[in-house]
C-alpha cells in the first residue's frame, strides 16, 4: 500500500453534514445536492410502493376464492393494472438508479455532485409530476388495460382513463432519460484523479450500463405511448385493424422498450450485489472485468430480444427462432455474474450481516428467476406457459426477488452512510428472513399454477387451482409483514440508533472514506485513487477505519496518476451558504 499522510479531519464530523447544513423545507425542495435528491426519491418511491403494494394485497385477497367474490371483475382489472404501472415505472425503474445511484455515484467516483445538479432536481420534479397524473387516473376511477396497454383494447375499446395514465408514464419517462444522462456524464467527466475505468466499483459499471439503456430505450416508449394517445383521441387507426392499422406494431414498439426496461431494473441490482458480496466476504470480487463486461453485454444484447414476449402473438416461425436464440444468448452474461459472485465467497471471510443476507437471498431468487427464463426462451415450452402464472412467477422472481431484495440490501448497507445511524442488526436479519420465506411461499406456487394452465389476469378461476392460490396468498401476507418491518426499525434508528461512524462494515470504497453522513461537498479534499476497487487483501488487521484511501490535501492535486480530470471544486452549491 502506498503511504499516505495522516489526515486529522478524517472521520470527524466537525463540519456540518449534508443533513444538518439547513433545515428549512425549501432547503430540501430546492436542493441541488445529489444526496438530498436521492432522499427525495426514496420518500417518493416508498409512497408509490405502498400504493402498488396495497393494490397487490387486495388482489391476492380476492384470489383467495375461485369466484373472486371480494372484488368485481372491473375492480380486479384496475387493481392489477395500477399495481403493474406503479411498480414498474414509479418504483422499480427509479429505485436503485435514482435513489442509491444518485446518492452513491458521485461518492464512489470521488466527485462533489452529479454533473448537472439542477437537471437532477428537475428530473425528480418530472417524476413526481408524472406520478400525480397516474395517481389522479387512479383516483378518478382507474384504468383497466394492464400495464402493457395492448392495442386495440387500449386504443379503441377500454373506456377508462388510459390517456391520463399514459401521460403520467410519458412525463416520468423524461425523468428517466435525464437521470440516465446525468449518470453517464458524471461517470465520464467527474472521476477523481486516479479513478480509472478499471478501478471503478462494479456498482458504477452496472449503473452506467443502465443509464445507457435509459437514454436509448425510454424515447421509444415515449413515442409509442404518444402514438397510442393519438390513436385513442383522434381515432387515426395506427393500431386499429378496422382502419388498416396493425395491433402487433404496438407490441413490437412497447417491448422494444419494455424488455430493456427489465434490465434497467435488474442491472443496478446486480451492481448492488457486486458491492455487498466483496464487503461481507472481505474479498476482491472474482473476475472483476468479466462482471463489469457482462453488464455491458447484457445492456447490448438486451436490446435484441424483445420478440420473446410475442412468440404466440402472431410472429413468423423464423422470427420466433431468432428471438429464442438471442434470448438464450443474453442468459450467458447473467450466469457469468452468478458464478463470479459464488467464487468470490471462496476462501473469503464471510459475515452474515443483514445486507449480506439480502445479497445471498438475491442470488438464490435471481437464479430461480433466471433459469425459469430459460423455460420461456425455449420456444415450444413458452407456447404453453406464456400468459400464465408461470410468467408472473418468473418476472416476480427477477423483479421482486432480484431487484427489490437488492434495493433493500443496498438500503441496509448504505443506511449508516446516508443517515449516520445504525439500525438494530437483529431486526434487520429477522426482516430479511421473513421476506425471503414469504416471497418463496407467494411466488413458487405460481410456477406450478402456470404450468397447470392458469392464465394470468384472471379475476376468477376454476376450482382446481384453489389450493395453490390460497398458498400464494398466505405467502403474500408474510411478505407484507417483511416489507413493513424495515419501515419501523429504520425510522426508529433515525432517532434512537447509535452513531455509525464513517465505516461500520470496514468496507472498501471511496464512499466509506468520508464521514457519515457525508459533508455537503462529499469530501473535504479531492481524493486521489491509488489502487483497484475491493482491495480487501490490503486491509490492515486493526480494521479499516484507517482506510487505505485517505483523502489528500487538494494542494497535492498535481499527483494525479492517470491524468483524469478532477471534480470541479467550484461547483458546490453550498459554497455560498
Amino acid at each position: 500500500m502506498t503511504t499516505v499522510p495522516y489526515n486529522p479531519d478524517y472521520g470527524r464530523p466537525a463540519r456540518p453534514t449534508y443533513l444538518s447544513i439547513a433545515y428549512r423545507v425549501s432547503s430540501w425542495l430546492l436542493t441541488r445536492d445529489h444526496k438530498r435528491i436521492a432522499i427525495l426519491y426514496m420518500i417518493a418511491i416508498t409512497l408509490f410502493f405502498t400504493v402498488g403494494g396495497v393494490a397487490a394485497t387486495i388482489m391476492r385477497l380476492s384470489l383467495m376464492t375461485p369466484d373472486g367474490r371480494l372484488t368485481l371483475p372491473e375492480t380486479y382489472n384496475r387493481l392489477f393494472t395500477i399495481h403493474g404501472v406503479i411498480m414498474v415505472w414509479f418504483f422499480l425503474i427509479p429505485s436503485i438508479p435514482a435513489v442509491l445511484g444518485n446518492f452513491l455515484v458521485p461518492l464512489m467516483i470521488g466527485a462533489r455532485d452529479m454533473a448537472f445538479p439542477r437537471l437532477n432536481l428537475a428530473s425528480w420534479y418530472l417524476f413526481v409530476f408524472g406520478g400525480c397524473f397516474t395517481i389522479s387516473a387512479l383516483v378518478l376511477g382507474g384504468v383497466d388495460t394492464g400495464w402493457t396497454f395492448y392495442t386495440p383494447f387500449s386504443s379503441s375499446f377500454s373506456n377508462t382513463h388510459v390517456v391520463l395514465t399514459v401521460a403520467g408514464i410519458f412525463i416520468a419517462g423524461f425523468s428517466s432519460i435525464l437521470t440516465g444522462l446525468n449518470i453517464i456524464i458524471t461517470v465520464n467527466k467527474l472521476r477523481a484523479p486516479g479513478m480509472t475505468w478499471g478501478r471503478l466499483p462494479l456498482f458504477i459499471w452496472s449503473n452506467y450500463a443502465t443509464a445507457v439503456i435509459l437514454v436509448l430505450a425510454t424515447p421509444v416508449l415515449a413515442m409509442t405511448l404518444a402514438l397510442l394517445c393519438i390513436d385513442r383521441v383522434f381515432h387515426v387507426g395506427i393500431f386499429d385493424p378496422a382502419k388498416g392499422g396493425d395491433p402487433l406494431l404496438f407490441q413490437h414498439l412497447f417491448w422494444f422498450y419494455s424488455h430493456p426496461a427489465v434490465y434497467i431494473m435488474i442491472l443496478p441490482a446486480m451492481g448492488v450485489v457486486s458491492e455487498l458480496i466483496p464487503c461481507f466476504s472481505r474479498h476482491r470480487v472474482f473476475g472483476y472485468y468479466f462482471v463489469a463486461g457482462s453488464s455491458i453485454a447484457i445492456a447490448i444484447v438486451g436490446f435484441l430480444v424483445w420478440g420473446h414476449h410475442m412468440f404466440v402473438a402472431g410472429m413468423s416461425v423464423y422470427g420466433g427462432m431468432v428471438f429464442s436464440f438471442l434470448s438464450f444468448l443474453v442468459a450467458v452474461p447473467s450466469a457469468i455474474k452468478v458464478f463470479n459472485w459464488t467464487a468470490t465467497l471462496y476462501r473469503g471471510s464471510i459475515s452474515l450481516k443483514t445486507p449480506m443476507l439480502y445479497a445471498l437471498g438475491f442470488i438464490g431468487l435471481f437464479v430461480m428467476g433466471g433459469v425459469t427464463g430459460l423455460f420461456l426462451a425455449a420456444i415450444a415450452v413458452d407456447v404453453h406457459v406464456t400468459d400464465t402464472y408461470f410468467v408472473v412467477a418468473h418476472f416476480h422472481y427477477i423483479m421482486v426477488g432480484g431487484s427489490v431484495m437488492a434495493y433493500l440490501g443496498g438500503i441496509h448497507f448504505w443506511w449508516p452512510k446516508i443517515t449516520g445511524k445504525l439500525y438494530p442488526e437483529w431486526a434487520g436479519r429477522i426482516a430479511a428472513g421473513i421476506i425471503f420465506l414469504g416471497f418463496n411461499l407467494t411466488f413458487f406456487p405460481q410456477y406450478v399454477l402456470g404450468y397447470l394452465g392458469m392464465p394470468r389476469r384472471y379475476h376468477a378461476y376454476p376450482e382446481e387451482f384453489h389450493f395453490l392460490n390460497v398458498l400464494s396468498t398466505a405467502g403474500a401476507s408474510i411478505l407484507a409483514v417483511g416489507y413493513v418491518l424495515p419501515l419501523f426499525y429504520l425510522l426508529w434508528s433515525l432517532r434512537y440508533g447509535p452513531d455509525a461512524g464513517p465505516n461500520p462494515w470496514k468496507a472498501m470504497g471511496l464512499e466509506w472514506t468520508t464521514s457519515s453522513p457525508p459533508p455537503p461537498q462529499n469530501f473535504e479534499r479531492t481524493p486521489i485513487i491509488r489502487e483497484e476497487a475491493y482491495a480487501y487483501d490490503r486491509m490492515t488487521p486493526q480494521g479499516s477505519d484507517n482506510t487505505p484511501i485517505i483523502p489528500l490535501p487538494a494542494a497535492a492535486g498535481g499527483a494525479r496518476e492517470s491524468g483524469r480530470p478532477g471534480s470541479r471544486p467550484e461547483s458546490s452549491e453550498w459554497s455560498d451558504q
Partner: protein
Amino acid sequence: MAGSANPFRLLPDSASGIAPRVDALTGFLLLATGLVTLIVLVLIVTFVLKYRRRSEDEVPPATVSRVSLEIAWSAIPLGIFMLMFYWGAALYVDLRRPARGAMEINVTAKQWMWKLQHPGGQREINELHVPVGRPVKLVMISQDVIHSFFVPAFRIKQDVLPGSYTMQWFTATRAGEYHLFCAEYCGTMHSRMIGRVVAMEPAAYQAWLAGVTPDEPPAVSGARLFASLGCAQCHGQNGPTLAGVYGSTVALSDGSSVLADENYVRESIVNAPAKIVAGFPPVMPSYRGQLTDEQVEQLVAYVKSLGAAASPSATRPSPDAAVPVTRPVGAQPPDHRPDFPPARNATDYDRPAGSQPHP
C-alpha cells in the same frame, strides 16, 4: 378431465400428440437447471459455513481470479443453452406446421365468447367437439380485441387477432373434457371467456355431429356471396382466376411473390390495392367496411374450397347454384404451413387462355 379436483397435482392433463413432447423438453429443462441451481446453492452454503468470519479483524488471502474458469463457466452454459434452443425450436416447428389432412375449424373470438364452426357448418359456442386421433387446424380471427386460444391439456396457445387470421393445430389423443381459456387479457370479463374442448372417440364424434343441425357451410355461403357481389364478372374473365390460388405462390406486380394463405386471400378482399397480381391492373376496389367479418370469412372459405388447380372442379360449390356441398375428405386444401415455403411447387396460376390484361 376439466375440473378434476386433486389440488396437489403438479402436471396438467396431457391429451394431444404434442403434449408429451413438450413435457419431455420441460423435464429436461427442469433437470438441467435444477442441477445448476443445486450446485450453486450447495457451493454458497458450503462457503458460508466453511469460510465464516472467525474474528472481526480477519483478513483472508487475496482473491485469485482465473480466466480459464471464466471461459469454462461461459462456454459450458452456452453449450447447454444451445441444446435447449435447438430442442425448443425443433419442437416449435412441429407445433406450428399442421399435419396433412387436418380438419379445419373456424374460430371467431369476441368479447367475451368463442364462436366455432365445423367444416360441415355445425356451430358451437364456448365448446368444441373434436374426434380423437384426427388433426384439427383452427383458423382464428377476432371481431374486436386480441384474444388467445389456450388449451392447457394440449399445450397449445395462439393469439387471435382482429383483422388477420392466425392458425394453430392439434391432434387430440385422449377422450375427455379439457379447459379452453382466453389467455390474452381482453377486458372486463376476460376470466369468463372460458369454455371446454370435448375430445371424443371417432364414433361418438360422428354421433354427436349427426345430432347437431348444421348451418350452411361457410364455403357455400361464400359461393352465394361471390355470385351476388358480382365478383365473377372479373374473376375468371379479365381478372385473376381464383381456382387453385389458395396455397399457391402468387407473383405480384412489384416483382415479389407471396404465399396465398388465408391472410393473403383476406387482404385481397378487404384491401385489394395492397398486393396486385402481376399482369393485372389495380382495378379491384377495397371492400373494407362493406362486408362483415363473417362475410369475409365465408368468401375466404369459398376461395379455399376452390382448392388447388389440380383438384377437379366437380367438388367445388357452384356460385350459380348454392348447393350445400361439404368438402370431400379426399380434396383437402394443400398443406398449409404458415411462414414456410409451400409444400409443393404450386406456381401454376391458371390465367384463362387468351385473356388480356387491361391496357
